[in-house]
């Protein structure tokens, strides 16, 4: 069970992130989670949004945007939760490309987004350990 993340290519210059965020907000889309990876020359904005199609459309008007399947894991908002998940993956020798976290208004819950090349294996391993993962539907329903 994976969710859809949108990635956008940004030049590493003042204003490009704000331009992307403005485009998304002007379209009435809520950003659930966000992360920016950067190099000296460029950055990649990664977002989990309420409306993937529409976000892709507005971002594509001025930059490159692509969809990627990622795993969003629900965990309890307490010390050691992320460690537990990473240990499971490590023991299964699954490599994590990148990771970022977000919380929600649901008390006591936190979420971590995992980018993993072999999604199917990771999903079944996590499922086997009783870890709860979100779907695109869950993301839509989730309260901001």
């Amino acid at each position, binding site marked *: 069970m994976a969710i859809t993340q949108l990635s956008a290519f940004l030049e590493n210059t003042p204003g490009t992130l704000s331009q992307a965020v403005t485009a998304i907000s002007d379209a009435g889309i809520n950003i659930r989670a966000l992360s920016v990876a950067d*190099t000296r020359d460029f950055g990649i904005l990664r977002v989990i949004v309420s409306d993937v199609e529409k976000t892709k459309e507005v971002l594509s008007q*001025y930059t490159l945007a692509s969809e*990627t399947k990622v795993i969003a894991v629900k965990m309890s908002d307490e010390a050691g939760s992320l460690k537990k998940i990473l240990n499971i993956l490590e023991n299964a020798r699954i490599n994590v490309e990148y990771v970022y976290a977000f919380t929600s208004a649901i008390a006591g819950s936190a979420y971590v987004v995992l980018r993993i090349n072999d999604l199917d294996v990771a999903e079944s391993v996590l499922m086997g350990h009783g870890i709860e993962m979100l779907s695109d539907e869950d993301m839509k329903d989730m309260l901001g």
Partner: protein
Amino acid sequence: MKNYYQKEIETASREEILKIQNEKIVKQVRHVYDNVPYYRDLMDKKGVKPEDIKSVDDIKKLPFLTKDDLREAYPYGLLGTDLKNCVRIQSTSGTTGKRVVAFYTQKDIDLWEECCARAIVAAGGTDEDVCQVCYGYGLFTGGPGLNGGSHKVGCLTLPMSSGNTDRQIQFMMDLNATILCCTPSYAAFIGESLAEQGYKPEDNKLKAGIFGAEPWTEEMRRSIENSLGIKAYDIYGLTETSGPGVSFECEEQTGMHINEDHFYAEIINPETGEVLPEGEKGELVFTSLDKEAFPLLRYRTKDICILSRKPCSCGRTHVKMTKPLGRSDDMMIIRGVNVFPSQIETVLLNEGYTPNYQIVVDRENNTDTFDVYVEFSPEQFSDKIADVQAREKALNAAMRSMLGIGPKIHLMAPKSIQRSEGKAVRVIDKRKLHD
């Protein structure tokens, strides 16, 4: 005291030089017509016979040769003698598709090396000097040309070739090099490296440098002179005519004397091909007067310069050319390597990119910077930084393999490269190379 390598010819009167040129051109045109079918066809098409050429004044009747002719005739089409008489091949640095190869007989090599020897002596070289040659050795003419010239002068020659700056500096300091031959940007780099290692300009024994193969400014000359504690001399040449030493600077540093007993120079209007009078700016055209193996007549260099016959205080009488003031085509010289935008475009298309790109050339600390901005497509974009960087690296390698020099690649979003009035600006050259 004034020094010349071949005083008699270097200081000959205008009349004497003309007499030599007139004798040589008549023989040379006959030689080419009889031995080079490619050029014979060009002459026949133009309706010019060898007997029409009685003096250098008649050279303007001859057809031009361009780099395209050289490519078309590759490899043997412009050869002027049997291969068994040839002893050497040299080649141009980077090219679109086919390289240009030039052939030499032993006599051609001797005359070429004499031209380089004249340049070394004009820079103050004698048989007491230690001449460090850090132009590349190999197909590139820089190393072999100056190496041969240095031998002819009797200098103790250090055939270092290019690169390995620490070793260059060690040999320079340990073996008391007095003359340095390399590209101006490498000379500047050696100067900086010496300073970084704690050497002051007076710590080395260098007195002169002979620098060429790329454009450089008067400002850069002064900066190299200060950092190395030397006098810096310009040298000009091209593989097609022989190599470095077609022309060279004397102590006056106001232009390069063309070795007129071997090369006849014209300045033409690049649009019309019309010969322009002395003092006017136009494209430099060379006719080789005595080369045997690769005797090019009216070869268009694409370099824009001005010729001057103003008397020179050094006593040399041969005509002087300015540094190239520009190009009549879109070729750039970056770190001594010839680069055409069309080559960049070819690599991009081969590698599956759009031809939306921009080349930015600048000069920082006397070294050329070379950046290529390329738009990429949604299919090529990935959410992983490493993937984008791997693309940039692969493109850099593909460019390096085509050009011999690798630009820094910057991938860009579609439509993000600026267009002016709808037309893409392909090249931004921020170097101020021409005063």
